[in-house]
């Protein structure tokens, strides 16, 4: 099974390896969610959803349902 953003634990770092182009909106890509960029899980709301991320220096929050479409490699 592939590791996705949704598998990250609080404080962990990872590199984005692939982004499902049909499921991920352009806006998220524009905010830096692109293959090769670093990502860190900063904080989680209760029930681990939404997730507060630091992607490539941009701080943003996305829902778990979106996060499962971003493949990562943990660091």
């Amino acid at each position, binding site marked *: 099974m592939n590791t996705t953003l949704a598998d990250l634990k609080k404080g962990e770092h990872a590199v984005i390896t692939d982004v499902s*182009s*049909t499921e991920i*909106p*352009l*806006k*998220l*890509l*524009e*905010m*830096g969610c*692109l*293959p090769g960029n670093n990502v860190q899980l*900063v*904080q989680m*709301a*209760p*029930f681990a*959803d*939404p997730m*507060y991320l630091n992607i*490539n*220096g*941009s*701080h*943003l*929050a*996305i*829902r778990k*349902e*979106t996060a499962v479409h971003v493949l990562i490699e943990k660091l």
Partner: protein
Amino acid sequence: MSRQINIALIGNPNTGKTSVFNALTGLNQQVGNYPGITVEKKQGICKLDRNLKGHIIDLPGTYSLNASSLDENVVIELLLNKNDKDFPDVIVVVSDVENLKRNLLLFTQIKDLEIPTILAINMADRMDYKGISIDIPYLEKELNTKIALISTRKKTGISDLKALIQNYKDLSTEPCLHASEIDAEYFGRLRHAFPNQLLYKLWLVITQDVNFGKTNRKEMDAIASFKTKSESDLKRLQQKETIKRYQFINNVLKVGQTVDASQTKDLRSRLDRILTHKVYGYLIFFAILLLIFQAIYDWSSYPMDLIDTAFANLSEWVKTSLPAGDFTNLLAEGIISGLGGIVIFIPQIAFLFLFISILEESGYMSRVVFLMDRIMRKFGLSGKSVVPLISGTACAIPAIMATRNIESWKERLITILVTPFTTCSARLPVYLIIIALVIPEGSILGLSYQALTLMLLYLIGFFSAVFSAYLLNKVLNIKSKTFFVVEMPNYKLPLLKNVGLTVLEKTKSFVLGAGKIILAISIILWVLASYGPGDNFNNAEEIITEQYASQNLSEEELNKKIASHKLEHSFIGITGRTIEPAIRPLGYDWKIGIAIVSSFAAREVFVGTLATIYSVGNDDEETIKNRMAGEVNPILGGPLFNFASGISLLLFYAFAMQCMSTLAIVKRETNSWKWPTYQFVVMTALAYVVALASYQFLS
């Protein structure tokens, strides 16, 4: 002769673009709407030198030129239409020093439009703090631009920016990368088909639906049909374009910017640990709300008392110093009383906007969105619905417009439909005066009963919004793809100037907007209350004098009897008594009935209406509150505004949909009359039932 040039401010949200705008224009600005749509248009004038003035437009914040909302579309529409009178001679891209990478994406897109462009890097005061250093000459060379390093907080660099704007003709219009390389063959064909158009413009038109000026519409339509690629292919190409731009930016910044992470003193993570905490986060949010309501109630009572007395005195003064007659009466009883009913609420409205703008400016609002998303989703809403629901406490109109950044149509529609339940500032006047009349003074645990009642009404508003959202979520059968991205900006100390200007602007437009309606309605009401048909009105004096001839009434008492007899048989009295049977079970008399009917134009008219009705024929000029307290229930005796009828009235106003402007906005945002009609019927019926039940139960 002084010349004027157009300057457009463009940038990501949260970059301090509006601060830059305020720094350049000061009070020399005006806020309006773009024609036909409800997107706010901010423009101002900045003096550059003796012969040159800058006309500055603060465009809505956007992350890129690929618009996904109406607000973002405004940016593209302006930049693609050379014939627009606001088409910029020079663009200033405002970016935030900490998010330079992401900000430059928009910058490289704008450079492709071949318009002179300046890069303003804002928040330069945070560079040391964050361990950031930037090689300005290198970036200027690589990005083909001029850079102004500014700090609106420390007020540095603004004159450099002005100097760059002044010399805009020296700026390069060369793009900084060749985006068309992502599919050379496709772009080659495109260029061949439309040799006179800018390639990037063509690409923008193809990938999104942009509305054009008439002059080049025909040609542009032809371009829009140049869709030799499928939608998913176009989407993939847009992704490729984004990746390419980021590659370029990463390479530039690798040399041009260094970040010494060890220098970072991270206030953000320390604050986030508490403010977005699973328990403390919610407690703090609730405490902030509590503070806001207690403050609105307590702090604003002093200026409000002053205003109330001042208007009573003014009305008195007009009556005594102008010659007696219809005009004087209209002025004193109709217009001044009616206007007093709105002016009195300026302090509270200003406080409310003050708090909302502080929450937004500080970056805290995004944390609330983050905390609330999961909970709100249970009710078919989005975390982003929290912003409309909170700003709905100021006014439902901007709140409904603020739903535009909710990505899912279903979540957005539900938010629009339930937002009018939240307690808007127009309900505040009604609540305040009724609470003052029927809720006793005194306090528990340092919180006054009256403030607690107000808090309770806000909670009722909020929970009925959430509960109806839950029902709508079950009932509405709309399939829409949901996604949710929210930026978590840095915490910032709100700038006094920004907050001040927002409060000033919002309060002004509230008072002017409501003032016009209230002025019109109070004149109509005064006329209807001062004239009447038939003998019963015209011969009131004889009738009453005859009726009470046996009782030895003083002249003052007799005059009061005559005035109230006249009012009852005036046009308004007749109308009021016709509808009275419908509202009697709710505990109201016909005067309140008239006030309710007139407040379907706008809720805050209620107080003004009562003020006008009560002051007609009444010689002693008292404050509105005293007049209402003196009203007697015609059937049961005792004060008309007692606990039961007061609560019934409060609940009626909590639920009823009484605002024409909100209905109009809902129509515009949902593009159909269906939704506002539902809203009106359901909310008003609910209000009637709840008010009826509470009065019958309490009395």
